């Protein structure tokens, strides 16, 4: 089983960064390679940052659970505009009771040994809980640290082109032999989501990429929805929303490509999400609405200019 968290938000930069600037931005460790893919859209991934942990694992209902091992975190920039940070670790149930030498853990990157034999379902439920407990594994904190590290880098001009609310998506992926891949997305509140994924064991490694893609599109969807709401509020108050709508078009719209960076075996999961709740349809409706507003405003301006 793997548990993880992805935090998604806009880079603090007024315009999307060009490819090479993104590579510089994510070169967080000297000598370690940044991986960039250009098609169908630029997606750049920072080197992994590995953190050693020996702490309590959150469980629900409460059980005794200790985790020792390492957590992997990396940052992803999509289209030079959206920043994600993603932490994950594979949980392996073990029957020893005392911590072993660190070399036992350090050569298995991104694996946490689970001591105390808690029922897996209780560990999964615990990982979804949002409140922070002392000395308890907190993937969100590792994500946030990575986000802040990148957002403070000198390659940025620190002027976000659009004000948007970041989202947090907690996920868990369970391997089940012969299972058909399945996903369940739960919207907890305006910024928090939880995702349960079931995959056959050979696809477990691909789950993290899928969840990052899901988090990206869920964030885009939420951000554009908020832009439409803000524009309606501006229009009701007699304020011109064109700058806001223009920024949303420039920064967000071309990034919508569900499943583009996902392993083909997991792409059917996107088809399920397109059925319920149906992402793309409402996304395109919102985009069309924004374009309509801009066209109408252009038309009005043109007519005004003519009568003048």
């Amino acid at each position, binding site marked *: 089983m793997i548990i993880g968290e992805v935090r998604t*938000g*806009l880079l*603090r930069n007024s315009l999307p960064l060009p490819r090479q600037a993104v590579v510089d931005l994510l070169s967080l460790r000297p000598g370690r390679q940044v991986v960039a893919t250009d098609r169908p859209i630029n997606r750049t991934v920072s080197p992994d940052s590995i953190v050693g942990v020996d702490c309590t694992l959150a469980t629900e209902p409460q059980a005794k659970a200790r985790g020792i091992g390492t957590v992997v975190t990396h940052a992803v920039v999509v289209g030079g505009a959206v920043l994600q940070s993603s932490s994950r670790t594979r949980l392996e149930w073990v029957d020893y009771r005392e911590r072993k030498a660190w070399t036992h853990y350090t050569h298995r990157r991104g694996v946490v040994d689970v001591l105390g034999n808690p029922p897996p379902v209780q560990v999964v439920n615990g990982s979804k809980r949002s*409140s*922070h407990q002392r000395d308890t594994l*907190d993937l*969100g*904190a590792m994500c*946030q*640290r990575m986000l*802040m590290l990148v*957002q*403070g880098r*000198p390659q940025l*001009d*620190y*002027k*976000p082109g659009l*004000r*948007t*609310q*970041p989202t947090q998506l907690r996920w868990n992926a369970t391997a089940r032999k012969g299972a058909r891949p399945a996903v369940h997305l739960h919207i907890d509140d305006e910024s928090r989501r939880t995702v349960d994924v079931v995959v056959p064991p050979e696809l477990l490694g691909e789950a993290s990429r899928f969840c990052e893609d899901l988090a990206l599109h869920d964030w885009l969807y939420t951000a554009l929805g908020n832009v439409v709401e*803000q524009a*309606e*509020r*501006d229009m*009701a*108050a007699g*304020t011109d929303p064109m700058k806001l709508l223009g920024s949303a078009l420039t920064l967000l719209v071309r990034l919508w490509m569900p499943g583009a960076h996902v392993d083909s075996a997991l792409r059917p999961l996107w088809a399920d999400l397109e059925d319920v709740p149906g992402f793309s349809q409402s996304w395109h409706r919102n985009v069309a609405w924004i374009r309509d507003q801009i066209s109408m405003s252009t038309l009005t301006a043109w007519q005004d200019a003519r009568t003048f």
Partner: protein
Amino acid sequence: MLVFASSDKGGTGRSVTSCNIAFHLAQRLDVAYLDFDFGSPTSGAIFEIPRAERGVEREGLHTYFTDGITDPRRLDVWRQTTRQDLRGSNVRAGRLAFFPGDKGGAEFGTTREIQQRCVELFTRLDSEFDVVVVDLSAGRSAALTMALMATAQPSMRGVTARWLVFHRWTHQHIVAANGLVYGDRGLLAVGKSAGHDQDTLLDAIRFVRVAVPNLREHNPGQTAAQATWLHACDEELRKLAVDNRLGRSRILGTTPVEPVLQWREQIIAESDVSAKIANAGTVKSFRELSVRLTDDAVWEGM
């Protein structure tokens, strides 16, 4: 945009006025309100959120700075307030997120690490909210120093910061407000040593005169001698304010004496005015403050 609310003395109405400004801003924008009054976090009571009346039990801003948590508690005022008339009073309102302090917290010293956390919090919230109101503890507090140091950092250069200094309309308060801005270890001096350009910083400071009596209103209980005396006092204070560089061009606005606020620190909503409990002039003054706060023309350099 970051807005820092400061005052030299306690009891100036800084918190209650900034809560009301935040309330009005949130009618059209996404607003965050941060309780940086670490010794006495009481803004929860003004928003009437019972579980945060004197700060929250854990994960408040105090814990964020001193204990290494990454996500301080945030409360949605529209959902958490027990005041029915604030909820849903405007279907198109923006977000109003309240970041409470911790119950039983205290002021703390500023280390390099705490400084960094402060920068991270400000930049993070500035990317998310249109306006972030930071209510600082009174006087030359550690919170004020921390805010001045954080806003001078290179990674904050794209962020607009505005500073409000609240004072009452009395001799002592005017002199004290002058000291807080222009005096030794005042805003400008500390700001300069933190790396701010003094002139730019001064252009980002405005004063708010709180609870100023309205002498033009007819008061039947007043004798002619009293009225004359009050007018003379008012005139004297005006001169004093100008001499202390708190004159007209440096003020953002004035709020009138409001009987409701003398009894109870709270949000003054339209419903309080229509119930004839609060004065219409009070709501008007809060609204004007919120408009001028975000009006760039008001903040152009002098």
